[in-house]
């Protein structure tokens, strides 16, 4: 487990990486290396949405890479069927460097005991966030529930 976290931290060797986390196919956050400003509550909401995004895009086989561009940042998702590494990065990140780093971390995580990771949810190695999760009315978009 600590080896997996160390691997994830290795992504920070690439300039422009804000942090990263690992989500399961169901969107559970298994591992995180993020600044404290990203709360567990926020990740608990984001994880399942990333899982749904991956599932929606996997209509012709499993989606292996997703790059989402925002105004100031990029979100990079490198996936295997059972888990995905999610990287938060600055807009100008060196993508070839990041891809190489993700290749290495992916191999490392494959060797990790994911079952063990899943057993200590939420937030492996992290202090649980005590903030109350916000409760919002469910929203729908073209028939799909989005929150």
């Amino acid at each position, binding site marked *: 487990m600590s080896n997996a976290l160390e691997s994830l931290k290795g992504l920070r060797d690439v300039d422009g990486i804000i942090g990263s986390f690992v989500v399961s196919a169901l969107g559970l956050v298994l591992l995180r290396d993020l600044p404290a400003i*990203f709360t567990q509550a*926020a990740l608990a*909401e*984001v994880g399942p*949405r*990333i899982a*749904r*995004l991956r599932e*929606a*895009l*996997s*209509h*012709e*086989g*499993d*989606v*292996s*890479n*997703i*790059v*989402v*561009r*925002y*105004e*100031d*940042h990029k*979100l990079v998702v490198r996936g295997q069927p059972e888990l995905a590494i999610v990287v*938060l990065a600055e807009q100008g990140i060196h993508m070839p460097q990041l891809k190489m780093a993700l290749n290495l971390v992916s191999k490392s995580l494959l060797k990790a005991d994911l079952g063990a990771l899943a057993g200590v949810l939420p937030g492996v190695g992290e202090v649980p966030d005590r903030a109350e999760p916000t409760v919002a009315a469910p929203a729908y*978009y*073209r028939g*799909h529930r*989005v*929150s």
Partner: protein
Amino acid sequence: MPIKTLSSMPENTNVPTPDSAIRQVGFAAQLQRVTLPDLVQMECLSGSEASFRVVSDANTGYLMFSGGQLVHAMTRTLRGEAAAQEILSWQQGKVDPCKFRAPNPPTILSHWQELLMRAAQQSDENPTPNVGLEKVNVAQELNDSEFLSSDEPEKAVGSGRALSKVIRAVRLDTQGNVVVARGEGNQEDFAELSAYAVRMAQVVGEGLGMGGFRALEWTLPSRNGLLYVESNGSVASLETSPQAELNTLRRRIGL
């Protein structure tokens, strides 16, 4: 009215003016590795009244400047802006001052910077053929199919040319209506997938404080996908074969 070709056009049609009258001061120079956009920029910024003969391989054309603008251009078959775009697409050759004087009224009304931008865009979309380059320029393919440039997208639905590397492409308006659809398979499904993916990317971005959503790219075993939000809020989404060249499209949409 047929356009006069240069070979049939008498030189005095444009009132020849002695070189000495055009440029009474300054240096005569020979420069190398100067591009035609460089020449246009230099002449316009200096408020030049000069004309130039451009020779590139078997092609000959003329560029004429007046009052800080490129006001006239002609080739053997074209004149005005079309000729200017044609000449600006030439990659190598020779430029010499000539004695033609720009006609009045001018045949080019666009600002010279606009002309150069258009030429650069055209150059991006029609790169010099490269035998070793197998990837298909997706931006050009979409442009040809009216996916990117259609002013009346609803008329273009189903009427575009076949796309060789774009597997399918849709454009949705801000209400989620499909206004353009191209390619194979069920485009309604693809439209729904695209709309849902945009929404997921937006809420993920909001949850993480990433700023406004711009574009999403994905990789599948046998195809790649790209979708982006246009300035008017429409969503354009496409899937391509892995051999497709997407860099030109990315540049064009500012990614």
